């Protein structure tokens, strides 16, 4: 696994031009169009006054320095010309020159095989509890069936999907807009560490790179490119997740969405996708059927409630019916004692999770 000098130089060029790219994007130049340009044309198109200086830097680029920096950040790098570079990505003209991998590079290699496709789960950063639980459930179900869960480690849905996959120790791949060694957002440090420990975090930008705005749609093109199916869980009408869905569609990949309430603005974008013909994804099984073919894999659903004894099952049903706090379920302190005990039991058995403010959430 390695990266050639030319590709490393290309990465350095893109990083040094990031401010210019941002400006060009504001002038309605398409990111993927820009990123498809060759080094020389990129320079002449964007560098403007600073062209001479940047060109000099570009020509005197020292690949060994870049490699040393990558090693220092404990990253692995592989370029387009490497055999383990994911085939799905290599197809497009704007494919990233170098992938920087933090964590296990084997995860990326596994993606190359067609029999185990990857599924992207993306969605709102400001997601509701339900959406988060759905994303978690999808992540868990897909990863348990061996499908790599690809997402962007953003707040909300993205992180929930990663966390779900991590719960079952299944494969998951995080694509960052900045350097792969930097946790972005910073508040997801714990998740970033957990992903690096057993899974993989990748980025096209060099180590330590702090993302600017254009990097996010650029990152989305990688997510869409890596996955054979992109699922949107909760997206508002102007969500970045819709860009991912659009990019996936352009690549000829399947796009799915989880239906949400028609009253909730936070699901308006994903519902609009469904209206436009996206696949309806209700649970992990739907996603597996689409990604692998119907009946190839069965999602190991949450344990069936048939195995529970009568009172616990009744309690679970009441929670499912919306009586999801102890206050709803108990009418006296003595009853509260019994109910709380039962809820804890259900939580331990994996049927429920303690949500915010004392509401119990049925685990997907």
């Amino acid at each position, binding site marked *: 696994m390695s990266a050639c000098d030319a590709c490393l130089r290309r990465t350095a060029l893109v990083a040094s031009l990031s401010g210019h790219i941002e400006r060009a994007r504001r002038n309605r130049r398409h990111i993927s169009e820009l990123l498809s340009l060759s080094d020389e044309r990129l320079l002449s198109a964007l560098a403007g006054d600073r062209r001479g200086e940047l060109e000099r830097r570009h020509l005197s680029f020292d690949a060994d320095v870049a490699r040393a920096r990558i090693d220092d950040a404990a990253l692995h790098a592989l370029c387009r010309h490497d055999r383990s570079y994911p085939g799905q990505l290599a197809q497009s003209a704007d494919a990233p020159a170098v992938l920087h991998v933090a964590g296990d590079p084997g995860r990326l290699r596994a993606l190359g095989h067609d029999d185990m496709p990857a599924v992207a789960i993306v969605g709102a*950063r*400001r*997601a*509701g*509890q339900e959406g*988060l*639980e759905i994303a*978690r459930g999808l992540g868990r179900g897909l990863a348990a069936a061996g499908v790599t869960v690809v997402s962007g480690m953003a*707040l*909300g849905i993205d*992180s*929930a999907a*990663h*966390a*779900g996959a*991590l719960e079952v120790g299944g494969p998951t791949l995080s694509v960052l807009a900045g350097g792969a060694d930097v946790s972005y*957002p910073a*508040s997801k440090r*714990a*998740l970033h560490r*957990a992903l690096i420990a057993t899974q993989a975090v990748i980025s096209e930008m060099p180590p330590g790179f702090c993302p600017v705005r254009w990097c996010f749609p650029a990152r989305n093109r990688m997510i869409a490119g890596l996955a054979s199916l992109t699922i949107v869980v909760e997206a508002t009408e102007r969500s970045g997740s819709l860009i991912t869905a659009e990019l996936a569609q352009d690549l000829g990949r399947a796009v799915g969405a989880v239906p949400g309430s028609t009253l*909730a603005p936070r699901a308006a974008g994903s519902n609009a996708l469904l209206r436009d013909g996206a696949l309806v994804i209700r649970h992990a099984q739907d996603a597996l059927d689409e990604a692998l073919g119907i009946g190839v894999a069965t999602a190991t659903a949450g344990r069936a409630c048939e195995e529970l004894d009568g009172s616990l099952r009744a309690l679970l049903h009441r929670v499912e019916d919306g009586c999801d*706090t*102890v*206050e*709803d379920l*108990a*009418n*006296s*302190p*003595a*009853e*509260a*004692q019994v*109910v*709380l*005990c*039962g*809820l*804890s*039991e259900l*939580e*331990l058995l994996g049927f429920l999770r*303690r*949500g*915010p*403010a*004392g*509401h119990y959430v049925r685990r997907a």
Partner: protein
Amino acid sequence: MFAHESSQSRAVPAHPWTYLGLVLARVTTFAIDGLASRRVAVEVDLRSGLPAFTIVGRGDAAVRESRERVHAAVLNSGFAFPQRRITVNLAPAHLRKVGPGFDLATACGLLAASEQVPASNVDRWAVFGELSLGGDLRHCRGVLAVAQGARRAGIEGLIVPRECAREAALVDGLVIAGAASLVDVAALLRGGRVPDLPADDPATGNRSGEAEQLDLGDVRGHASPIRALTIAAAGAHNLLLSGPPGTGKTMLARRLPSILPPLTRGEAIDVTAIHSVAGKMLSGMSLVQRRPLRAPHHTISPAGLVGGGALPSPGEASLAHHGVLFLDELSEFGRSALEALRQPLEDGVVAIVRGQRTVSFPCRFQLVASTNPCPCGMAGSPRCQCSESDMARHRRKLSGPLLDRIDLLVNMQRPTTEHLRASALTTSEVVLGAVCEARERQALRLRDTGLLTNADLTPRLIRDLVRVDGAGLASLHRSYENGDLSARGHDRVLRVARTIADLDGSDGVGASHIGEALGLRQHDALDGALAA
């Protein structure tokens, strides 16, 4: 001595007022120092010269102003004020003296020095009290501490303002004379009869500052919070109430004292001493008999919370000693204030260092805190507009060392209309019975450890004393392995489970006890660190 010799060396005129020699009187009083008091000798020196009145001996403004009060009080009580050069010394001189409590001693010293009362009788008494301009004695803070000091100093009797006499009388082995005015005091010093203590006024005598005892019978609905409050009371566990505004968090917290076992006499005297020094005793009140509940506002300073000041006085944490400290809207409190509370919460005592001296105030209180579940308060309902980062910020504000000491988390919901219409679920009396029984079981189990309640169990004692059956252990381990529980959370669950078993009257801790304790655990840092 000196006075005697010098007066002998001159020809002593018949009337003491007419000779120009030295007169010295010495009166014993006490200065408040933390919760204790230190003996102070008030020496009064009358000397010929231009009339002047000086008080020396590191007094504060109240002591300096004492001159005017004493002057007026002496004259208005019908005594003569010596037109001499008067020097009053409060000894020992290195001790800082604060407050108006030295008024009476200064006045008595003046009367003795000018031989309006016999100096021989003055030695038998210690005096303490503030004077009004008319010569009346006023209620004064710290009387109990003064009485304790007088008892320790082996003084026969103590003269205090009549309103404070019952408070001083809590100390045995000391003659307490309650005097209403300077005239009464003079009569006592001339050998008058010691008046009886004022009768214990039932209206004020047993009041702890609250008009009426609050009762759980006033609460509608809230089955699970009441259950949690019972557990908290039984094991003296600290409690966090989380719920939207207006759900009754404060209402419940204020009712916690009503289900706590009554104060023992020793505890009551401790509490009274603190309240007395802090000036929180109502006039005519003798002994605080209810467990105090202190609910400081969230703008309180660190010094206000744990005590402080140039002359250290107890803070809210100490005023809540043997009672409940209620921090409403925990996340709004200043970080430094909460930080200051950490060590006292651990040790049960606040140590305040001033110069070379350290003053310590006890503060073994039960902490009840309340908080909104999220910044908008609607968490859990679809109306909640808070994002994950808002929630994270809210959690970060709450988290910290204080939460480590909180064993129980209760989520409160708005009561429904059915709940509001239904009758009360229980009364404080019923709950108190169960709590007292559970406390007895704990005391029996902990008799060799010097502890009283399960909340104080150390990890080591948990290992030795908390016996969990197989099924209970299995639940606990599963929860730990699921990552729902931190190592600290693990111990907290065991402490709470032990209390639940005590409430059940069970010697062993079973799966149901562990189950309920798990349901009441806090969201640990591990929860939600990875996602959502």
